[in-house]
């Protein structure tokens, strides 16, 4: 089977001598026996460490959980600094979690029932693979956009009964945050964990309006029409 890998702006073809294989296994085959310098990231091999996300034919996948097909084109994640071949710098993207202050702001005692746990069970399945970030078109025009996973995580804490100060989180995701999303749904499609950041962002907008925030895009429009 043949696959192509994008390495510093060059497409290189490799012959993979397996009938079927995960992408990760194929990458290891190349590194171990053909070219030691092929560079990629991986760790757990079982889809929970979030390390091995790449793009295949333009779609984000976890290399450990994807079966290669004849002719596949493998590229690094988008909107990340490519360090080498398929390895990207995730540090800057991680900073979005700090910007979103995605944690319990003022923890309070709370009796939590299973229904409440289930409410954000999906969101807390996030493995920080950055696939959603790579799929988000807003990053193309606004590199400072907080992005889907950090907003999902912010939502997860606002929905936690232990959070005593929801507003603090809501305040921190206003600029470059919830209102910048176009609700295109790419992130939802890209997520290997079945998380729906688009929905979480919609929920956060609802919460934000309870605290008096409105969609700045509409405000801008109002002004454009003379401030009715």
């Amino acid at each position, binding site marked *: 089977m043949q696959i192509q890998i994008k390495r510093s702006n060059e497409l290189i073809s490799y012959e993979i001598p397996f009938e*079927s294989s*995960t992408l990760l296994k194929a990458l290891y085959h190349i*590194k*171990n*026996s053909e*070219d*030691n*310098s092929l*560079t*990629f*990231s*991986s*760790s*757990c*091999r*079982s889809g*929970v*460490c*979030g*390390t091995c996300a790449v793009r295949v034919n333009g779609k984000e996948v976890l290399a450990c*959980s994807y*079966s290669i097909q004849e002719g596949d084109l493998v590229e690094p994640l988008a909107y990340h600094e490519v*360090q*080498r071949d398929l*390895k990207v*710098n*995730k*540090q800057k993207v*991680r900073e979005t*979690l*700090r910007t979103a*202050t*995605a*944690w*319990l702001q003022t*923890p309070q005692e709370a*009796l*939590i*029932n*299973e229904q*409440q*746990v289930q409410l*954000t*069970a999906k969101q*807390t*399945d*996030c*493995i*920080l693979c950055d696939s959603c970030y790579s799929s988000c078109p807003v990053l193309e025009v606004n590199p400072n956009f907080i992005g889907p996973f950090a907003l999902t*995580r912010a939502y997860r*804490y606002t929905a*936690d009964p*232990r959070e005593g100060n929801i507003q603090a989180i809501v305040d921190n995701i206003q600029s470059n945050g919830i209102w910048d999303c176009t609700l295109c749904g790419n992130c939802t499609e890209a997520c290997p964990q079945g998380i729906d950041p688009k929905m979480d962002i919609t929920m956060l907008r609802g919460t934000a309006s309870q605290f008096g925030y409105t969609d700045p895009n509409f405000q801008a429009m109002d002004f454009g029409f003379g401030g009715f």
Partner: protein
Amino acid sequence: MLDILIIGSGGAGLSAALSAKQQGSTVLVVGKSYPTASQTSMAQGGMNAALGNVTPDSIQAHINDTIKSAHGLCNEEMVKQMCEDAPFSIEWLEKLGVPFDRTSESKVAQRQLGGASSKRACYAQDYTGLKILHTLYDNCLKENIEMLEEHLLLNLIVEEKVVLGATFLDIVTGEVKEIKANATIIATGGYGALYKNFTTNSEGATGDGIAAVLRAGGTISNMEFVQFHPTALKSSSTLISESARGEGGYLVNTKGERFIDELLPRDVVARAIFEQINSGEEVFLDIRHLGEEKLLHLMPQEVHLCRLHEGVDPITELIPIKPVAHYTMGGIDVNENLEVTGLKNCYAVGECSNAKIHGANRLGGNSLLEIISLGRLAGNNAVGCDCHHTEIENTQLQQDQEYIDGLFEEYPYEKNFYDIQNQLGVDFYTKAGIVRDNTQLNNFLNELRVIKADLEDMGIGDKNRENNTNLVDFLEFQNLLEVGEVLLDAALVRDESRGAHYKTAFPKEEDKFFKADALYWIEENVLQNRLVKVVN
């Protein structure tokens, strides 16, 4: 001067960081990967604490189960301390925001794991480790704890047995750096990757911290104890959880015969499977009779994994399986304060350490407890250390720099270490795995020493300094050889069967000689060992 350097950013490292920071110390957490990529993310089953939320339980019962599983090789005081702290550890995690599942009375839900006399494991769906690790990470961000990713520990910096910090390879830039601190905590995880292609562990479980301690003159212990999980997928070693058997799955051989009661303890089932495989049989897990509806409802994840990795559909086909290495009990030898034996101002915690909790066999759910409970303890204990840094010029950085530079100069090399590493995985599995034999161990140990001596003929093909994962793989491979040598020697010495260590020729526990910890250290360039009797 940095107060505390924490090496390793899994559950143990992050817990230590949070507690030390809370005491007002300055902390820096350094890891070779991103924190959330640590092996802690893989834990599914749960974390033990005798809360008795679902079935009656007591701390004493938790202590008793742990001691029983340890087969005489634990420090009962340490076990007691950890089990007593377990309910508080859960409460601590709860406060940080871990989304544990709940009972109908809104208490933390608990499930049964093997070897426990009650439903004791607190869980967050099948992602207990993931959710604990990510919540710890979120809290480290909140507390503004400084974290350095992609820095690979090379060596500890030691002057007269006092640890002054460590040297690292910055994987991204290729620079060799030193980081000094008043106290150093090692939390680098286990050495399951020795059993490459025959382990559930992550690729990074290469025993780096353990090897570094050994090189620095510290002591490691009980390296021969490795726990095997009976059911992993044959080609990928992906874990198929115990629930498949719990729900009524069968184990069958090529002839279609069942050969063992599937619900016996892990080590017994693993041994039975291994014997079948050794006698030329293939072994399969058969869950077809459970029916499609039940399978898709109860274990969708497993069904998906079988299709992906084995190309079989478990609804209509048999699942090829093998038992694989799952947890490493041995590690850096520490005292009750988690200080590393033979070194000062240096602590070790988590799977990299041997805190005399798990002894000869770990109880499921006790390792997550260990990393949280003892992780916090390590952080607290390291507070206030002062290593009285001397101005003596230390040459560690220079030595490590020279070694790495050398790897970039030498070319070509004759032997491909990846091939050797793959073969080592097979050899560890078949010769130092579930059932052991002295002749095999001895021959293998000799072979491994030859490989060590041949290291000069191996090297890196990738000569680019930046983001060189070939270099990282090679350094990890060397660590594996060092800890592997000790594992083999210790397995050879221990002429008995105890917990996870089983020798056909010595099928019983021999307390007279071997109710003892096997200590290893290097003195004047020679590996030394001693058995130290365990008295409780």
